[in-house]
């Protein structure tokens, strides 16, 4: 038996902005949520991928403690997308999300220059999904039909969160929490409620790009883990519109992991939290 590694094409160039990573670079987003943090850029986390929120015992692959230093220290310069983007069509033969889902296929998202599908979930929130393996571009996993239901449920769950946070005031009473989170979103809500009580709210600002990947660990017909190295340009604002304490503008790479389970014919999030090494590629 012989084998070969496929190198299908190369990343397209274009004029979109590349993520710039490196130690010591400026942390784009700053909102300290971790208890016991002493401050400093390496401990800054995103409000939108808050690793201090753990639904349950995180289990394999989920690190409840923190975002990895390399993730937190990464930054990017991003050209924000303005105005509505034209809807595009997927290349033939590739797996896609359901056409009737709360997303639409668009041409691009800020900070994404690799080939793949870009879905807009709401203004300022995108998901990037590769459609073919391209190791030269660092792409191993790509969307397959088998993983489509997992990714769709993951995105639905993430959308619930962002829709809740990105309102002034935050709206935390959506019945969608119960639809997509096995705990009804209680772990998230326990963190968000104090913020909502203070009048704080989220602003997607430079945009958030989810880059979910279904990993092999724990993957069965009824379970899956989705990790994401998210390009997070969101901020948390105070009631008067100022940056909330610890929040800063810019885009950070943040790692998160969501455990999904299939029960009663529907995929739901059963655990969620920060992760380590997801952004290492």
């Amino acid at each position, binding site marked *: 038996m012989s084998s070969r590694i496929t190198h299908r094409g190369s990343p397209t160039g274009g004029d979109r902005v590349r993520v710039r990573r490196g130690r010591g670079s400026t942390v784009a987003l700053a909102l300290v949520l971790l208890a016991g943090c002493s401050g400093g850029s390496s401990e800054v986390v995103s409000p939108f991928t808050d690793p201090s929120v753990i639904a349950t015992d995180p289990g*394999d692959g989920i690190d409840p403690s923190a975002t990895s230093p390399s993730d937190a220290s990464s930054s990017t310069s991003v050209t924000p997308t303005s105005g509505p983007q034209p809807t595009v069509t997927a290349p033939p033969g590739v797996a896609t999300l359901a056409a009737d889902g709360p997303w639409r296929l668009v041409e691009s998202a800020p900070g994404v220059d690799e080939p793949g599908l870009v879905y807009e979930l709401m203004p300022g929130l995108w998901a990037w999904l590769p459609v073919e393996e391209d190791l030269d571009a660092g792409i191993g996993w790509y969307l397959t039909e088998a993983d489509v239901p997992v990714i769709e449920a993951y995105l639905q769950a993430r959308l619930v969160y962002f829709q809740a946070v990105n309102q002034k005031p935050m709206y935390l009473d959506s019945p969608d929490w119960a639809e997509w989170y096995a705990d009804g979103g209680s772990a998230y809500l326990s963190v968000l409620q104090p913020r909502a009580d203070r009048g704080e709210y989220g602003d997607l600002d430079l945009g958030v790009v989810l880059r979910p990947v279904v990993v092999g660990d724990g993957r069965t017909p009824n379970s899956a883990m989705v990790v994401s190295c998210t390009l997070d340009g969101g901020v948390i604002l105070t009631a008067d519109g100022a940056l909330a304490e610890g929040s800063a503008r810019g885009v950070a790479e943040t790692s998160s992991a969501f455990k999904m389970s299939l029960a009663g014919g529907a995929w739901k999030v059963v655990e969620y939290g920060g992760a380590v090494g997801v952004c290492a590629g």
Partner: protein
Amino acid sequence: MVGLLSDSAIAVGNDLPPTVPPIYVPGARVVDIRESDGSLHRYTTIPTTSLFRTHGSSECTFTATGSGTTSDGTTYVAGQVVYSERWMFVEGLPEGFGEPNPADPTAGLGALADAVRHFIVFCDSYQHPLGLLDVGSRDPMLDPRQQLTVLRNDVQLVAPTVVDDPIVAEWGGWVTRHPGWLAVQPPAWRPQASNAVTWRGWTMYLLVTPRSLDFLVEYTPSVESAVMGITGWTEVVACVAPGDAVVAAPARVPARPDLGSPRPPGVNGPCTVTAPAAGTFTVTPIEAYDVVFWANGYTERLDPYWWAGPSSSFAVGDLASVNVTG
């Protein structure tokens, strides 16, 4: 004198080209396994005894041929040596392996014990290939035998069921001192395959082939027979032994031969049993199967599987009585 040596050393050092310190990158090993649909899934949970865990030293290394960035975001320049804990193993595309043939279950690519999966080894990122690594099928990261329970639970065998001897149709039951033939329905005596199970790049089946057939026969005398001193008994009636050539008939396996004249009570030979007196026969077929584990075209024999089908009960009567009542 000491100062002179010190100055000399410094002077020599200054004549060397500037050096860049090596980079040490923390991280964890990852394995990208090619699933059965051809796509890659990443695994980070690696058993301690797996070759993916034990291969090489704690860090892989490469010397940069140009500038770049490590997996933790550290920049490097040409000529700089990078040590990384992030070993990466990426599986290549396998050759085709076809479909299993239940009628010839061991046909294929050879013994599963000899099967290997091929991986390309990278250091720190896909940009730095180090070489190839073959991993055997017994590696705990890949061993398909871990899925045998799933496969066994997924086997949907046709249950062996006792087929009525023609004497039952003719007389309404078994006839005392006349031999009867024990057999099962033909669908229960044929090679069968489980549904396919896929796991970590393996496409797996269990292939089962009928191996032997026995019947557990329990005779219970009627009250009248018991009064006459007839006692019950239980016998195993051997029918098909491993390796026997089996002749099938459209309605039964094995085909029923001419059993001839009345026989003494008890087991009269393969598949043949005779009732001593009025009563009841309870017959349970026990079929054994040869089992072959098929994974990506490689095969491995497993222990035979024994399965008892549903029990069937038959009335036993005297032929005279049957004539009287008829």
